[in-house]
């Protein structure tokens, strides 16, 4: 679970941007609520701007598409996370930085 060898983090390449709406998540102060949503379990899926917090299992939402090396913050559990690619599945996921 790490960067693929030779993977290039191109921060300049165009990323898709997303308008975040309120999903009813109310576990953080109001102005930050749009950045999170509840994980609905099996059957739920993550958009390219979303990642699951491995510490508290809340979905973190970014206003832009996430890429390897991005850092995100999970306010519900106060964890700092970095986006990595799971070598086994090829999908992006968040790793806690303790």
């Amino acid at each position, binding site marked *: 679970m790490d960067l693929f060898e030779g993977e290039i983090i191109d921060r300049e390449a165009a990323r898709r941007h997303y308008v975040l709406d309120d999903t009813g998540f109310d576990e*953080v102060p109001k102005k930050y609520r749009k950045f999170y949503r509840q994980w609905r379990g099996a059957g739920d899926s993550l958009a390219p701007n979303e990642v699951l917090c491995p510490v508290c299992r809340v979905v973190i939402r970014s206003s832009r598409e996430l890429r390897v090396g991005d850092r995100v913050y999970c306010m519900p559990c106060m964890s700092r996370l970095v986006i990595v690619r799971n070598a086994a599945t090829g999908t992006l996921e968040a790793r*806690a930085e303790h």
Partner: protein
Amino acid sequence: MADVLSAYSIQSWLESCPQGYLEHTEYGHAPGEREPELLFDNPVLHAETIRTTVQLVLGERCALAASSGLINAAPEEASKRFLATQTLDEARHVEIFTHRLYDLGVKREHLESTIQHYANPNLVKFAEVLLEKVDRKDFIAGVVGQNIVLEGMAFSVFEMMHALEADLNPKFAHTLSGTIADERRHVGFGENRIGALIRQHPEKKAAIERMQKEMSYYMLATFADAFRHNAAAAEYKRLEQASVIDEHHARWQGVDLAEMEPEAMEQVLANTVLKEFKIRLGRIGIDYQTPLRP
């Protein structure tokens, strides 16, 4: 480190918790919500619901004693403030689960005798292992025991109970939702704050690993008692077959809990919690110790 600690703010807790998911609630649920009539009409379900709720009260009393006891053992101000908010969270949990016992018909003058009657001795031993560390002002072991082992267990137990209750008992499911939100902060604190301290004090690892193994054993023994001697699942099945209640489903961890035998549910819960322990402890540099199986 300063950045991590700055998140432990009372203001942030106020805006997230009392002004967030607890706004407009009373004792953790929407005003006016009631326990289902079925729980009062059916003596088997009534007794089992009281038994389960007593274990929640006991677990939360332990968490209250641990989080309050750790405040003065914390090495810096920000952790003391976080533990002060956690202390209030745990006191609230004690109150809402105690209030549920009253809602279920337990008389206030019979509260302590009811708790004594139904208390699971293995859960009491689980608490004693943790509180011995807290009494010694061992901050690192206390936080691992409280915020990773106890809270990690509570996180999964509450999630499983929420899946089971979502359709059957919206009042209790709402109560559980608020406690799950609280647990997110508590497990986050355990992982985020303790990882660095373990690196600074590697000599503490062995004792912490022994504590985790011992607490895990008593946790599994509590689960075994709770599931193997629980008549509620069979009673719900009987009521479904007699068309007294609608067939219900409760999906969690990829299985339908409502379709499972109690022993199979015990295995799902135990395996989920132990797997979570292993992952969480690994992230802070502690080697998970496989406990004996009761």
